[in-house]
């Protein structure tokens, strides 16, 4: 019992800084509707800056001054980011903003590497709070007690700020009802910048306060951002108290999992500590299934700013069909002209083209957010790999991989399409993480973190050019299916549901069922891409279904142009080519890749294909 109590205290101590970081993100989201991926990077910068202060000025001034300095410095960085980058893309589709913040993650990570070097930096303990006090016969760190107190204090301060000040009133108004803020005659720009300053300040402080508990490392940014997303979503987007409660729930669940250790349940030994890998995502999925807007959230009204209206599709013209045929012939002829490695790279491009095109179906045609598309790519890959190991042939394995992905997309999709906007995207993310952690831990079947090796295509296809042609056939057909669907009654119905849900319902469309079918179809097609991928690499390991892979797919779609047929394919080609070339030619390729993405997003908010189309339209109109 006392062990339980002390684990509760441990959980509360961890919750404090998680709360600070999460509430910052939540406030920013509430006002600007931006899901800021770089918030984790702000947290990381907080730790690094605090480290520099605490080690260059020793003693209490260095440490506590460092905490404050970290908060302020990160606030300044947040403001700069808001003014220089985000302000230019507020009217772009929400997912595009997400990609821009992801590009910032890449840039900030490399900047931190350049400034602080690659080694982990363990900071000093907090002056005055270096030791432990006895609680129930156990030594408990005084600093953890301080953190618990600070967490509660910050909650009170923020509550007072929200309730008692004009700034707080404006924040609440902007979160709950945008038009009301307009009516209050507020300078929106200033409000957005201010909330970014506040949110980033909190991230910086949250990071700085972790300094005595964990070293500054370059992996902290993505390490915390997933947790923070989870907290913000469980609590309800934009909710201050929600973030507090959710941070506590998550931290306690983890602490109790560790406290339970291994237990025998129904005669089976179960290692609870292993659950810490995924506990928060299981909690999030459960909360979202039962409370679609999180614990304390209100439905989010997404502003329809992104209404860059497409032109009607019509029938594919003869010129288009001719171009398609010419394109296919050119692609087929490629190995005759270029070297073998071009075939290898082009194989990757084709696979990612199908992956991105299938995601394009969900986020473009169906207008649904997905952060977790890699789950289906990964399941397709693992399905095919396991089928091959079980002795199935190449084609049957491809088929079984796709079938596994389809089945999973049907199960997960059923829950996901019941939510909307960011909540739906987060539920897809949660399912993807759950898939990832099962694959990661189920050693006996999936090979755990090492994955499975030795999954090569049959001898006849193992030549690089032959495999390229195989990929061109399979993935090409997949991409054509993605394109074709858009022209069919089903694709029209999906678009109808996206353009106006009330109208779609009023003309008798079963919106949820259509979206479910669309989600499942896209999942199955991503599975095909994954299945081909495993044969092109000969091996597979869990990172194929991890968050970065989902983000890659999003980047491809948005880079190419959402709501364009060619967009995802062009995006996949450009992204793969950039990554391949940059990684080869520069040490700081990650930052360069981030900068290129950022520039593209700011200069061509409609994506490459979308912008070319727009340019052509303007020319024609002029």
């Amino acid at each position, binding site marked *: 019992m006392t062990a339980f109590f002390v684990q509760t205290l441990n959980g509360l101590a961890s919750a404090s800084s998680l709360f600070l970081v999460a509430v910052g993100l939540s406030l920013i989201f509430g006002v600007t509707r931006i899901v800021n991926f770089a918030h984790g990077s702000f947290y990381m910068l907080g730790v690094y800056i605090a480290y520099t202060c605490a080690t260059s000025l020793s003693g209490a001034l260095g440490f506590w001054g460092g905490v404050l300095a970290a908060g302020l410095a990160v606030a300044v960085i947040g403001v700069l980011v808001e003014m220089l980058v985000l302000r230019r893309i507020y009217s772009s589709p929400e997912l595009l903003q997400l990609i821009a913040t992801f590009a910032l993650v890449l840039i900030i990570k490399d900047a931190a590497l350049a400034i602080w070097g690659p080694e982990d930096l*363990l900071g000093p303990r907090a002056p005055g709070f270096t030791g432990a006090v006895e609680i129930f016969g156990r030594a408990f760190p005084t600093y953890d007690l301080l953190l618990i107190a600070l967490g509660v204090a910050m909650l009170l301060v923020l509550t007072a700020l929200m309730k008692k000040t004009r700034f707080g009133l404006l924040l609440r108004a902007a979160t709950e009802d945008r038009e009301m803020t307009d009516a209050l005659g507020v300078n929106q720009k200033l409000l957005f910048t201010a909330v970014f300053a506040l949110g980033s300040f909190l991230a910086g402080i949250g990071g700085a306060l972790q300094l005595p508990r964990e070293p500054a490392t370059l992996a902290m940014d993505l390490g915390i951002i997933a947790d923070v997303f989870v907290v913000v979503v469980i609590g309800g987007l934009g909710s201050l108290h929600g973030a507090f409660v959710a941070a506590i729930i998550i931290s306690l669940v983890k602490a109790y999992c560790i406290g339970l250790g*291994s237990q025998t349940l129904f005669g089976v030994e179960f290692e609870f500590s292993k659950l810490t890998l995924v506990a928060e995502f299981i909690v999030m999925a459960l909360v979202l299934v039962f409370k679609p807007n999180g614990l304390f959230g209100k439905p989010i009204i997404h502003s329809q700013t992104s209404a860059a209206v497409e032109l009607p599709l019509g029938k594919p013209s003869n010129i288009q069909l001719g171009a398609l045929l010419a394109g296919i012939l050119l692609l087929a002829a490629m190995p005759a*002209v270029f070297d073998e490695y071009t075939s290898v790279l082009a194989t990757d491009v084709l696979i990612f083209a199908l992956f991105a095109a299938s995601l394009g179906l969900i986020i473009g045609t169906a207008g649904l957010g997905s952060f977790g598309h890699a789950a289906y790519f990964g399941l397709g890959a693992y399905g095919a790999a396991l089928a091959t190991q079980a002795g199935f042939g190449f084609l049957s394995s491809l088929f079984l991989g796709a079938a596994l992905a389809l089945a999973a997309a049907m199960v997960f999709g059923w829950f996901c399409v019941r939510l909307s906007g960011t909540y739906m995207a987060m539920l897809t993310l949660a399912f993807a993480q759950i898939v990832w952690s099962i694959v990661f831990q189920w*050693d006996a079947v999936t090979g755990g973190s090492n994955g499975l090796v*030795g999954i090569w295509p049959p001898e006849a296809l193992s030549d690089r050019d032959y495999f390229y042609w195989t990929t061109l056939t399979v993935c090409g057909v997949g991409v054509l299916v993605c394109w074709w669907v858009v022209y069919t009654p089903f694709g029209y119905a999906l678009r109808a549901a996206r353009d106006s849900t009330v109208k779609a319902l009023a003309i008798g469309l079963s919106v949820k069922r259509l979206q479910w079918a669309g989600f499942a179809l896209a999942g199955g097609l991503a599975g095909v891409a994954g299945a081909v991928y495993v044969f092109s*690499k*000969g*091996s597979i390991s869990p990172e194929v279904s991890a968050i970065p892979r989902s983000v890659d797919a999003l980047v491809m779609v948005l880079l190419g142009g959402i709501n364009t047929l060619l967009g995802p394919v062009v995006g996949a080609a450009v992204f793969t080519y950039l990554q391949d070339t940059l990684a080869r030619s520069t040490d700081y390729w990650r930052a360069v890749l981030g900068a290129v993405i950022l520039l593209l997003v700011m200069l061509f908010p409609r994506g490459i294909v979308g912008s070319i189309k727009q340019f052509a339209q303007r020319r024609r109109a002029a």
Partner: protein
Amino acid sequence: MKTKLFLLATSATAFFAIHSASAVAQATIKIGEINSYKAQPAFLEPYKKGWELAQDEINAAGGVNGRKLETIFRDDNATPGDAVRVAEELVSREKVALLSGTFLSNVGLAVGDFAKQRKVLFIASEPLTDKLTWANGNDYTFRLRANTAMQTAMLVPEAAKLNKKRWGIVYPNYEYGQSAANWFKKYLLSQATGGVEFVEQAAPLGRIDAGSVVQAMLDAKVDAIFNVTFGADLQKFVREGNTRGLFNNRPVVSLLSGEPEYLDTLKDETPNGWIVTGYPWTEINTPEHKAFRDAYQKKFNDYPRLGSVVGYATVKSIAAMLKKSGSTDVAKMQAAMKNLEVMSPFGKIVWRAQDNQSTMGAYVGKLAKKDGKGVMVDWRYVDGKSVQPTDDEVKRLRVGAKK
């Protein structure tokens, strides 16, 4: 509709606008080195320096068989898929004579399997997974570092001597951690005199909840601890353990913690008396290590880490192999690797013919604090050969290995 045609054309040119292959310089022997430089810079920056030191030494002495060594470094983005792609590029476009490198086990396995498929030689330097040379081993893949089983085996005799009954195991929740924990349990059960029992804590890699884990170990009343965490997890674990008194009268046996990469970050938190594997670089004064250390410090104005030794020894092994084979023909290089003897900073190592594993060992000793920094004391070198399972057992372990 002209646009669409135009777009298709541009996307096609995007495909084609790939640089043409660079001319193959006849004079050099090219090595294709693949690693997670961006993802694991703490280990791999020193690794690359060690690599360059060795290569420069060899080339200054006239190269191998009259040809200079040239290395093409490629980042694998810490994913096996990308690693395989750059391996394809190195093999088919850069025409490298062999592949080397990799840090993460999953990447190492993927490249190893690729090597078998494409019939190229692959010298894995760092990945620790046992599977690389055993269950998933093949005739094209060789590995320098002692694997997880061997590293664990170095520590178990020390653990057995402690005569403790209830062991707590803390490990990062992925294959390396799981495998180390399993070997530890297996070896200790066979070596301990009294009965032993185990309490386990698996922590997500890089994100350990150290306070809760330490608390759980205390609540479980363990007598001793086997630690497998490293990096940031280790630092968190040590600090919480120190604060909460976990290490008082409770001996700890810990994998890799004596390596400068991990030890140096602990500074004055360095726990006293932990039994660890590592690399006490200041104190190893064998001629071969002294020469290496001096040259390294002179060239980079920095001290060597374990990564530096691994990079250095990899190049030296490759050079020795090339000298022996006298050719970059794959079959000849494979043959040359068998029982190849190389002088490394740790002394003479042998690339065992049975499982393509080198006998490079590690240093086992105790941690201590000196001038606010962590050092290893009472250390000794454990030859990799001495912790290798018996030939019969290796044969059994390699049953899944393919030609």
